[in-house]
């Protein structure tokens, strides 16, 4: 019985892996993605130069608007505030940098050991160490980011990704494509977070880091 469950889970995992691989293969093939959701056909395409310009313009406007408003703190203001609560964000940043340096230097050592034909058990020790370092780096990075999430810099960064989703999302209308949301306000008030999540995922893969 237990064995049956194990085989089933293994099988489901493999199917999932294949589906994920197909999804990526599909995304690599072209610079647009068409998908179905709740009986409707949607599309997202790589941003044109004009769309990028529009998004950056909005980003600047958002930044200046937030800067004018005293209730939004800059990263440096937040860091000072946290200091008063005995949370040292700067120290966290230095710690993060040091961890990355240590991880990279361990990878360099592992690379040399691989080149010199070491045995697998020896390599595994390095691999486990690097994996644990990566988890540590990720944890610290997420912790630091969550502390600074309410800063103007982070908010503007979240805003530009959302704005791109609003700009790029299209819906099939007969033979034509039309915008899913006519205004950014309409996008913000949408009752379909699933659709936004799907579009966000594809747009991040198309745009990358901003």
């Amino acid at each position, binding site marked *: 019985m237990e064995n049956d469950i194990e085989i089933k889970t293994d099988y489901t995992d493999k199917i999932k892996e294949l589906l*994920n*691989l197909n*999804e*990526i*293969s599909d*995304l*690599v*093939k*072209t*610079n647009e993605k068409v998908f179905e959701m709740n009986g409707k056909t949607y599309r997202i395409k*790589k941003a044109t130069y004009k769309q990028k310009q529009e998004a950056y313009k909005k980003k600047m406007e958002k930044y200046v608007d937030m800067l004018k408003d005293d209730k939004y703190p800059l990263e440096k203001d937040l860091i000072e505030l946290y200091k008063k609560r005995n949370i040292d964000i700067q120290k966290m940043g230095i710690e993060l940098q040091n961890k990355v340096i240590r991880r*990279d230097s361990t*990878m*360099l050592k*592992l*690379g*040399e050991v*691989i*080149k010199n*034909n070491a045995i*697998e058990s020896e*390599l595994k020790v*390095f*691999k486990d160490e*690097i*994996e644990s370092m990566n988890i540590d780096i990720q944890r610290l990075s997420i912790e630091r980011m969550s502390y600074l999430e309410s800063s103007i810099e982070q908010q503007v960064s979240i805003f530009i990704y959302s704005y791109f989703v609003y700009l790029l999302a299209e819906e099939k209308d007969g033979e034509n494509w039309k915008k899913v949301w006519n205004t950014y306000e309409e996008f913000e008030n949408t009752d379909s977070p699933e659709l936004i999540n799907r579009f966000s995922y594809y747009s991040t*893969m*198309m*745009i*990358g*880091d901003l």
Partner: protein
Amino acid sequence: MNYIKYLRELAKSDEFQNLYILSRDLKNIKFFDNDNDFTYVQLLFLRYLNFYYILNNDIAMGDVDEIVLNNSIYEDSYMIYKNKKDKEMFKNNTKTKNKEEINNLNTTKWLFKDSKK
């Protein structure tokens, strides 16, 4: 979904590696429907195609054992080491070359022929 994992898997596959090797000679082999305006994920895919091409080449040349392909940490670590070594070698070569060039400037390269009598 960790898309980098799947992107690497695709780029590493025999199918795409063979296509990549062929595409270096046959210009009509296309990886994408679009010829320009590549997305972030497409550019990343091209980078990984080249990454695994270099790795496979090194294995074929006997520079590194196949064990390197066992997981992405081995692959990345080897490439970090290789890039560092290549950079050092390039730096040393440039230094030696520069020294040679300076030495060459100090020696005359004129050929004097006896005039015909």
